[in-house]
Structure formats: structure tokens, C-alpha cells
């Protein structure tokens, strides 16, 4: 039988926390599952980093595989010990008759940055998760990049819950704030023609301003690059600096248009690297090599 996410979290936290800290947490979790009210929840959430320390959650490849099996797309790499314990506290809490989304909103309104990150990383695991769609949207508006990435990166919630509009704006904002696109779960799966158009417009803005265009942008364009204009953009990028060329080549390889094959053929070095599996979106370097 597959483990439930909450059981995995419990196991990881118990393994890593000091014994007396775990004993304390287990008691608190029991209380939250029983009679404890919201004031107790706030205090437990506040005390968790003090009792358990703020180390990275130590996960082995097996753990990540178990997470993936327990909840499709869930990737807790980069979680912290206190963050995991905070999500456990939230999963344990039984709010009497109050929708979970309301409890979540109250917590989010008074959270510090580290707490926000923990709260949002837990999104795929909460009950009634569809009801948290607007809450996730609010989190994406944050100016704190780490908070934004708690939703956008390594988190299947946006893939599973967002409509195309919110999805597209999340991907676009990732570019704006200098976040990688590759850690977005479901990036290729949720690709759509509207996003491809938005990305191409953005590339034109960057070109007009004389600013570099991140090669990851073209990943959202490739499968929809069928008309002359889109292919012309990719041809232009293929003519650009080395890092941008790599993105353009990968996008051309993903285009269904025969014309794209022909364009890619003009860059035989990149075509060969793609065929050999050496040039891939997840290995793309975004930095130009030092001159």
C-alpha cells in the first residue's frame, strides 16, 4: 500500500528531530487533532522553529520517490524541518465547522516569510485543496521571490488546480522575477497557445529594450511555433548569443513544423547535442560563459 503524504512527513520529521522535540510535537499534534483551538495553532506554529531548529529536511532519493508515489508531482526537496512540521500541524488541526480555506487565510495574513513558504509548500497536501486556488493566487502576488517559488517550484498544485489564465501569469512572473522555469511542475504538460503568444511578446519587449532574453522562455513557444512569425522569432534567437541559441534550438526541436527542422539544421552542433541528449531544458545554463 502506498504511504499517505502525512505519514511520510511524520516519519521524516520524527527521524530528524531531537527526541524531546519530537515528543513535544507529537503531543501538540494530538492536541490540535482534538480540542485545541486556533490560538493553540498559532502558538504551535510559532514555537516549531524554536523547538525543532531550522535545518534542511534531509531526504534520500527513496524518500523523494515515495513522495512522488504518494501524491503525483509532490517534490519536497528543499523543504526545511520546521516547514515540514508546520505543514503537519496544519494537517492535524481540526477546525470546527470552519472551511479550511478560511483557517489558511487567517494564518497567511499574519505569517512571516518563512511561515508563508511553509504554508504554500503544503498546498498539494491540504484538504479541500481546490478551495485554496485564490489563496495560491494571492501568494503568487508576493514580492518575495522565495514565497513565489514556494508555489511555483516543485509544487504540483498549480498544474492540478490553476486555470490557463492564472497558470500563464505565474509562468510569466517567474521570468520577470528571475526565477527558473524548469522547476515548475507540469510546464510542458500545461503549455498552451496563449502562453506561447505572451512569451513571444515578452521576447520582443526585451529585444526592443536591448536586454537579454532568457533561453527558457522558448520552451513555452516551441510546441506552438508553427507559423512564420513564431519561427522567425526562433530564427532570430538562434542567431543570438550562445545561451540564447541553445534555447532556440531546443524549441525548434519541439516544433511540429517542417520549417523548424530546416532551421535547426542550420545549427548542426546544437542539433547533434540535442540528438545525443546532451542539450536538454533541465541542464540549460542561463549564464553566458565569462568572456
Amino acid at each position: 500500500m502506498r504511504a499517505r503524504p502525512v505519514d511520510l512527513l511524520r516519519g521524516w520529521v520524527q527521524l530528524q528531530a531531537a527526541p524531546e522535540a519530537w515528543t513535544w510535537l507529537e503531543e501538540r499534534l494530538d492536541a490540535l487533532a482534538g480540542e485545541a483551538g486556533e490560538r493553540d495553532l498559532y502558538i504551535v506554529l510559532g514555537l516549531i522553529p524554536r523547538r525543532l531548529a531550522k535545518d534542511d529536511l534531509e531526504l534520500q532519493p527513496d524518500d523523494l520517490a515515495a513522495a512522488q508515489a504518494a501524491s503525483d508531482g509532490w517534490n519536497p526537496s528543499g523543504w526545511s524541518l520546521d516547514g515540514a512540521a508546520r505543514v503537519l500541524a496544519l494537517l492535524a488541526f481540526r477546525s470546527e465547522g470552519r472551511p479550511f480555506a478560511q483557517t489558511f487565510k487567517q494564518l497567511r495574513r499574519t505569517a512571516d516569510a518563512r511561515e508563508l513558504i511553509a504554508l504554500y509548500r503544503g498546498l498539494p497536501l491540504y484538504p479541500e485543496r481546490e478551495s485554496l486556488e485564490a489563496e495560491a493566487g494571492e501568494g503568487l502576488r508576493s514580492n518575495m521571490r522565495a514565497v513565489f517559488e514556494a508555489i511555483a517550484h516543485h509544487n504540483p498544485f498549480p498544474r492540478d488546480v490553476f486555470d490557463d489564465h492564472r497558470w500563464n501569469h505565474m509562468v510569466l512572473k517567474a521570468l520577470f522575477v528571475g526565477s527558473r522555469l524548469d522547476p515548475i511542475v507540469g510546464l510542458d504538460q500545461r503549455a498552451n497557445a496563449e502562453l506561447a503568444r505572451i512569451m513571444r511578446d515578452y521576447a520582443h519587449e526585451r529585444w526592443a529594450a536591448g536586454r537579454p532574453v532568457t533561453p527558457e522562455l522558448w520552451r513555452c513557444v516551441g510546441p506552438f511555433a508553427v507559423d512564420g512569425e513564431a519561427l522567425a522569432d526562433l530564427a532570430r534567437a538562434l542567431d543570438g548569443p550562445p545561451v540564447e541559441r541553445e534555447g532556440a534550438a531546443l524549441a525548434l526541436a519541439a516544433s511540429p513544423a517542417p520549417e523548424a527542422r530546416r532551421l535547426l539544421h542550420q545549427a548542426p552542433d546544437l542539433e547533434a547535442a540535442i540528438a545525443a541528449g546532451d542539450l536538454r531544458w533541465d541542464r540549460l545554463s542561463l549564464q553566458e560563459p565569462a568572456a
Partner: protein
Amino acid sequence: MMFIDPHAHMISRTTDDYEAMAAAGVVAVIEPAFWVGQPRTYVGTYIDYLASIVGWERFRAGQFGIRHYCTVGLNSKEANDEELAEGVMEILPRFALKEGVVAIGEIGYDEQTKLEDKYFRLQLELAKELDLPVMVHTPHRDKKRGTTRSMDVCEEHGIDPSKVVIDHNNEETVGEVLQRGFWAGFSIYPSTKMGNARMVEILKRYGAERIIVDSACDWGISDSLGVPKTAKLALERGVPEEAVHRACYLNALTAYGQSGQMQEADWLNPPAVDQRTLFEGNSILRGGREPRIEVPGEQRRRSLTIE
């Protein structure tokens, strides 16, 4: 030399201030919850304000390599709005245990009214319950008596003076504060509080034990470089380096470090890239540059192009 500015309302300051402070050697700031220049009339605005100083402002400071801490509390002016005060007292426990909250403050007296007294005492009890230090704002008017009374009330509530910083001292109040075992804060604030030449004289007379220098910079005419400028002037005028280090760095760390939320390693050994807070590290410490005092915005003013 590294400095801490343990009283700075950065929410009212620009990025020029952060840049200038970082360049002058400020590695950490403490942002006390305060009166924002005009009264808040809803508890909701108070919640958002406190959420800003525990989250957003902390992140903003981190972008300049400055570690940001704060204190939370109901200030004395707004304690006189009873409806607001009751609401704030209800939500304060939610904020007091946030990351980087190093004290309950700034609390105390303004006009020394009954309501101010009531909420000062309630907050002292909260500090005791949560084992947090206290930052006391002493009144501008009737200062000497208000300062004495603040300390009397702390003692009455069984708060250890070593956990209380009495701030905004002057020549008239410092003697008693030190004699009774409290920390004595001095705000280097033009015109109304303390000037730095006077501060140097106080350091010469009393030494630096339990003395803490801050800028109290805010939305008024104030100087975000109050601490490094005072340190420089003190060194020039013959105050020993060790005493300057205490008054402009170590004492604040010791007093507020009692919260367990502030330690030297936060800025001396930050993780290379702190993914969960996005603290950018301290370029001064990393690059080994000498701190320099430059007017905020100086670099921006010198350059005509905006990229």
C-alpha cells in the same frame, strides 16, 4: 567595523538608506513597531503593518545584505484609542513568536495617561509569559519622571532589568537607568533627541557598559547613518575602539539576543544563498571593503544614466 542599528523604522526609509547603511558597515537593524505618523483607526491596518515588518521589510533589508529584526507592540500614543488597543492586544500573541521578533516594543508612556499605563502593564505581562526582552520608549515630555516611572512599573511586574532596554535617554536620565541595571538606549536624532557630539561626551563620562546607540530614523527628519557617524566621531575624539564596539554593536546584540532570535552567525555565516529567506549575504564582509560613510543616494546622484 560592524554596526547594529537597534532602533530604525526602515519601513519609512528608501533603498538609498539601505545602500548607505550597508556601505557604512551596518550589518543588522531592529525595527520597533511604532506610531506611523498618523493614528491607525482599525485593528486590520495594525495587522497588515505588523505583517509587513515581520515579512516584507525583513526581505527588503536582506536584498542589501542587512539582517532585519523587529519588535512588536502597541505604542503609547495608540494605547489611548481603547477600541483599537483591545483589538491589538488580542492579535499581538500571534506576532510575538514570529521569526526575528526580538522584543515586545516599543511600549511605554507618551502623555502618561491611565490607558497608556494599562496597556504598558498588559504588554509587560505578555513579554514575561513569552520570555521576551522589552524595548521601552520614554516620553518626549516630562521625560525624567516618565523614565523613572517606566522602570518602577517594570520592576513592579517582576521584569529583570537586564531584559529591558530603556530608549531615547539623555543626560538627565542616563545615570538612574544605568544605576538601576537597565540597558540605556540613545537615539541619535537631530533636534529632538540626542546629538552625536553629546553622545560622545556621555560615552566618555559613563563608559560603554549597557549603553546602546541607535538612529531611531523614521518618517521624520532623521539620519539613517546615526550609528556609524557616532562611532566615527567617538573614535576621532579618543573614545577607545572597544567602547565604540560595545555601544554601537555588541550591547544591542547581547540585549536583544536574549530573545534567541538574533545571533552573530546570522550575518557572519549566512548560507551561500538562503533559499528560504533570500538573504543576499553581506557584500562588505565578503569583499573585505572598508566601510565608508556616504550620503544616501550619493551614487545615484552622480550618475545621469538610468539602466
